[in-house]
């Protein structure tokens, strides 16, 4: 292309060039002038909610944090905000920001939880495009306020009929049950994710709370936690310091959601002495409890336990699955096996260690 031809294109287009340059500069100027204003607007949108979701918190005493969690294979970044008390050190509560699939598309929520992540202190729907007039009513005050003071350990369900205040479920918006239920499952999941993220101390807090229920009369000091690999194992001592049981915590996906159990074995990890449930959202849990499935583990030798079909009579080291709740029973059996294996290993380590010490 001879240069002269190119030159006269540009010559012809001098107007376009000047306009382009001037607009470029103008837009940059506008951006500089307005940008920080816009950023503050964005920031305020979430920070304004903090006082509303965490009672007593103050908008500017907030620390933002983030943790990553894998949701269905993909690692997703979840941000949370820690509201600090006036003294600036102790946290008053957390505000989690998370999203999930609703009836039409994504729903983004802000969930306020108390410092021990045990109760929900507030909920705010940031963004949703549910069906207007129906699903979009999840933003209304009366729907959102139902979540306040609900416990985070047990799952929240959206029920079609009105719920008594003490029950952990909420009433769904009529003919928008799917949107209501999606909000509940988003809340359940994000709270559980957040709890898992929190350091073992909170986790330990929970275990320490349940072990006395398993062994009445055991005080908190008599429970010592021993790290075993990534997990933690607890040694339970009796009044005069002798080991009476080892307790392990196990979690697995049940039929609908995760099931969390505490399994106790005797001092030298030979027989299973107790199986205690920490957290479950299984639909058929009543059936499992009624069938005494958990107790059927007690007394078994601390080895691999096989689950058999509901009709067949269980032999040694076998447990009978609960009709209509086979998947849940299978999950429980696997947790028990897993925890028992871990307990045996850690007990063996300790005794080995002791042996080494003795030697």
């Amino acid at each position, binding site marked *: 292309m001879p240069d002269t031809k190119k030159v006269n294109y540009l010559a012809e287009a001098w107007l376009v060039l000047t306009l382009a340059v001037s607009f470029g500069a103008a837009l940059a100027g506008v951006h500089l002038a307005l940008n920080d204003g816009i950023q503050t607007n964005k920031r305020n949108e979430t920070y304004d909610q903090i006082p509303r979701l965490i009672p007593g918190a103050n908008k500017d005493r907030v620390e933002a944090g983030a943790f990553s969690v894998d949701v269905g294979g993909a690692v997703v970044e979840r941000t949370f905000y820690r509201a600090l008390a006036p003294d600036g050190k102790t946290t008053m509560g957390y505000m989690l920001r998370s999203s999930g699939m609703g*009836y039409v598309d994504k729903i983004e929520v802000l969930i306020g939880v108390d410092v021990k992540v045990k109760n929900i202190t507030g909920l705010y729907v940031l963004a949703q495009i549910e069906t207007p007039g*129906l699903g979009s009513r999840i933003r209304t005050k009366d729907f959102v306020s139902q979540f306040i003071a609900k416990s985070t350990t047990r799952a929240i*369900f959206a029920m079609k009929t009105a719920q008594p205040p003490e029950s952990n479920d909420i009433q769904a918006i009529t*003919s928008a*049950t*799917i949107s209501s239920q999606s909000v509940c499952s988003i809340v359940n999941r994000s709270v559980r994710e957040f709890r898992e993220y929190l350091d073992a101390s909170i986790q330990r807090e929970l275990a320490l709370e349940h072990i006395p229920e398993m062994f009445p009369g055991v005080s908190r000091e008599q429970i010592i936690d021993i790290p075993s690999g990534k997990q933690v194992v607890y040694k339970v001592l009796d009044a005069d310091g002798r080991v009476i049981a080892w307790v392990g915590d196990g979690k697995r996906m049940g039929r609908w959601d995760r099931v969390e159990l505490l399994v106790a074995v005797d001092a030298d990890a030979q027989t299973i002495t107790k199986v205690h449930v920490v957290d479950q959202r299984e639909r058929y849990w009543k059936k499992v409890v009624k069938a005494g499935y958990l107790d059927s583990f007690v007394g078994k030798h601390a080895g691999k336990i096989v689950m058999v079909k509901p009709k067949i009579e269980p032999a040694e080291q076998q447990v009978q699955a609960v009709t209509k709740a086979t998947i849940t029973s299978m999950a429980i059996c696997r947790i028990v096996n897993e925890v028992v294996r871990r307990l045996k290993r850690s007990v063996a380590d300790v005794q080995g260690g002791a042996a080494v010490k003795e030697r």
Partner: protein
Amino acid sequence: MTEATDNNQQTDTPPRAPAGAGPVIHVAPSPHSFSKSLTTRWMMADVLLAAAPLVAWAIFQFGAEALLQLVVCVGGCVVAEAVFTAMRGRCPLGAMKDLSAPVTGVILAMSLPCTAPWYVGFIGACAAIGIGKVVFGGLGQNIFNPAMVGRAFVMICFAWALAAGGYVQLDEETAAAAADPESGMAMTAKEPLDVISQATPMDVLKTRIKDRKEAAPTTSPARDDESPVALSRLFLGNVNGSIGEVSTLACLIGGLYLCWRRTAAWQIPAGVLLASVITAGLAHLGGGGAGLSMADFVGYHMFGGALMFGAFFIATDPVSSPITPKGRWIFGIGLGLFIMLFRTMSVFPEGVMFAVLMMNAVVPLINRWTIGTPVGGPVPERK
């Protein structure tokens, strides 16, 4: 040779030729209607007659509620017809004479739940006649079945009244009110309360299918153990649902009468039933059986919901369905497929209404594809 008898089509009556100048006969291009009874009035009267068993069963089943709904819808349609035709500058009485407004009203009423408030029926009627028919140019010009246009409008407008929740709504209040004694709510003259207290059969089936498929529970555990209603009750119509479509027996009686009177083309219902039976069977084989046996599952789809009512009354509206027999088969089968598609895939428990609207949109194309060959052999290609 007698004078040509007058009939209801006004034409510019020509001046009579001078007496004795031979008979005055009338001529007209084809198609030639051969019998008196084939005027639109008679056709519409046939449809009303065929709907009689449905209306009777609805009033028996749902009591005064259904009657109110019917009166509101038919009245609304007639009023809307008068107002809109007057607006178009045509004399409203002419439109009244062909009884098409009451027919739209009855079909619309039959497709609404008895719990829907009065304004739902009235607005549905105005939408049906206004947007569904008169805007397109009056009877015969509308592409979509007016009753379905009205119901679609109302269903989106007042979703809380017509979606699955709407059916159960009343029952909670009445159930609760009837339950506690001092509410003083006398047992209304309705049929046994339990009939309308549980969700519609289609809704139960839908939630069962949904539970089986998805991991996370979509409704609370309390609901899952409702076994679907026995097929016999479904056939007879002793279940909850829109007032007109519950009783398959009444639909069959009315429908077969229509087909026998040739007001409704039999190919359409045949196509619909055939397609939905096959698809239901395939769905069951494909594991979507929701724990029912094959016969139950297919029977459930056949007798449940608005399939029968849709196939015999809604789909066979002569204006919005194809004219050639081959076209009608395509229309029927397409309709059956869409109904099953919506029932299994979509969130709505009932898919007949949307399916009919979708197929109505395709009818002009079907008509063009299935032009029959004229009597004298295929039309020569225009050079």
